[in-house]
């Protein structure tokens, strides 16, 4: 478990980072109850320069809190945190020059003004050299299809258009790392594809380090080699996407169509194979994701009147759900 990273190029470093909130709940007119919430509970990881990492977990797991600490918005309660060698909470404005942030739920653009005005202001605010600004702007306009939108006030943009506008705004100053908090939330299929394609190119061509949180596992499948899973403020998994299946003890499904209705298939000596469902001539057999389907298919073909078959890959969502379930059962 874990992806080996050359320590020389560690760009983001977290060591035992915690964030504890004091939540006050009003119980009477003046009385209130204090409760400690450990939003992030001792997280350590490293991300190398140029990596593209998915950061996933259920609502309230601590994803956004982590991003807020990485950008310097929130100060960690404990542990150490470095981005490009900078302590984000101490040197927030200095770090801001080197990072780009996209919040899926809220825009960093000026709501009442046309996109063009927001970009103009970014140009001055980040002190972006004119030639660099022009190159980056032209690139974003082309790849994110912004030409038609530049004179439209942000509030009139659709969610997908606004998201593209936001991503452009986050990249005009050539940040070394881009944080995306739910960048595809609420987008239609076409917009999602456009955003993913852009991010993939950005990472490949410019070597921009990308850390993205998402609910949409397709984002991770299509973009990230490495995935980190967080729940209850703890890192549950950090490694390749494929390895997630093994950790989650996931199963693949062999779906077979037989010539006629038969009782559930039983294969002697194959204890890891279970027939989970029978529906007329069709039967579903679950087997470990790590095992090969070939010998299994051969045996069924030898012992049963096989007409057709297909193999279904495990659903990552189910894998993660299983991981959560087994973790909370401990």
């Amino acid at each position: 478990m874990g992806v080996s990273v050359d320590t020389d190029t560690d760009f983001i470093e977290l060591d035992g980072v915690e964030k504890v909130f004091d939540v006050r709940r009003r119980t009477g007119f003046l009385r209130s109850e204090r409760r400690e919430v450990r939003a992030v509970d001792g997280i350590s990881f490293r991300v190398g320069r140029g990596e593209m990492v998915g950061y996933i977990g259920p609502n309230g797991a601590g994803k956004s809190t982590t991003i807020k600490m990485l950008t310097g918005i929130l100060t960690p309660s404990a542990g150490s945190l470095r981005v490009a060698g900078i302590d984000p909470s101490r040197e927030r404005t200095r770090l801001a020059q080197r990072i780009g942030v996209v919040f899926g739920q809220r825009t960093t653009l000026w709501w009442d003004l046309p996109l063009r005005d927001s970009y103009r202001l970014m140009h001055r605010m980040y002190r972006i050299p004119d030639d660099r600004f022009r190159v980056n702007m032209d690139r974003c306009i082309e790849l994110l299809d912004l030409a038609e939108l530049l004179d439209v006030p942000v509030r009139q943009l659709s969610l997908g258009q606004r998201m593209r506008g936001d991503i452009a705004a986050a990249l005009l100053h050539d940040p070394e790392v881009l944080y995306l908090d739910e960048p595809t939330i609420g987008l239609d299929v076409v917009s999602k594809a456009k955003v993913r394609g852009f991010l993939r190119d950005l990472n490949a061509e410019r070597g921009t380090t990308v850390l993205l949180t998402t609910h949409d596992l397709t984002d991770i499948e299509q973009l990230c080699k490495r995935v980190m899973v967080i729940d209850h403020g703890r890192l549950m998994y950090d490694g390749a996407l494929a390895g997630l299946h093994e950790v989650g003890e996931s199963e693949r499904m062999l779906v077979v169509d037989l010539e006629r209705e038969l009782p559930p298939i039983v294969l002697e000596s194959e204890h890891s194979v279970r027939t989970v469902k029978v529906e007329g001539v069709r039967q579903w057999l679950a087997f470990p994701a790590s095992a090969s389907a070939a010998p299994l298919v051969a045996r069924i073909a030898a012992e049963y009147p096989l007409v057709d078959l297909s193999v279904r890959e495990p659903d990552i969502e189910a894998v993660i759900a299983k991981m959560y379930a087994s973790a909370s059962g401990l």
Partner: protein
Amino acid sequence: MAESVESVDVAVREEPGAVFVPRSRVVEGVRAYGLIVAMWLRSTMAYRTSFVLTTFGNFAATAFDFVAILLMFSHVDVLGGYTLPEIALLYGSAGTAFGLADLLMGSMDRLGRRVRDGTLDTLLVRPVPVLAQVAADRFALRRLGRVSQGALVLGYALVTLDIDWTVAKVLMVPLMLLSGAAIFAAVFVAGAAFQFVAQDASQVQNSFTYGGATLLQYPPTVFATDLVRGVTFVIPLAFVNWLPALYVLGRDYPLGLPDWVAFLPPLVAGACWAVAGLAWRAGLRAYRSTGS
């Protein structure tokens, strides 16, 4: 987006992220404030008619306020021992000072909403001070309406009043307006800082800013001594215009204060800014440790 941007500053450019040149936060803040205000002005000027109408509306709304005082003086000759031109001096100076502060810092009272809806976070990831971004947000030039109304009443007072002008009294007028605006601005900042903790407190802030400005439009003699004491020593609003204006008028000070207090407003403004700045920092720090 190829055309170059109209330049409003001549700041030195450097490669972002390459070399970090430490700059004074005040200089950075003022620069950022200027950039954002320039953007809002450009956007306001895209709708000139709307701008003219809202500015006039702003002017008229505040002007009716003074009409009420004129009506009052159609029945009485003096109010709390003060004549109409004397009241006009107090009214005009408070109105102008408050109008200036409102023009420059009036957006601060939106901080609570920004904290509640989480949009403050988007300001925290930018490389410029948050205070400047909040203060310059939605800069509304129409608030000039209030400033010009105050200035008109003040002008009327200065022309009508029979004052024995000395150099000190002449200098006192601009000193009073600038220090007064600075004191009100500090109150705006302190009020916003309080909203980090209590996000629904914008009405509390309004009671000090708008409420304070209304209070100062009348002479101290019409109020109870305890209230006068409060706005002198607790929230030093009396230094906005009461004390300097009474000096210009050659009137007795409230609470038996000595003559020289009329020259304190710049110092009081400085102290207010120091306190407001500390409050702001504390508020922002609290926000960054709680995130709510």
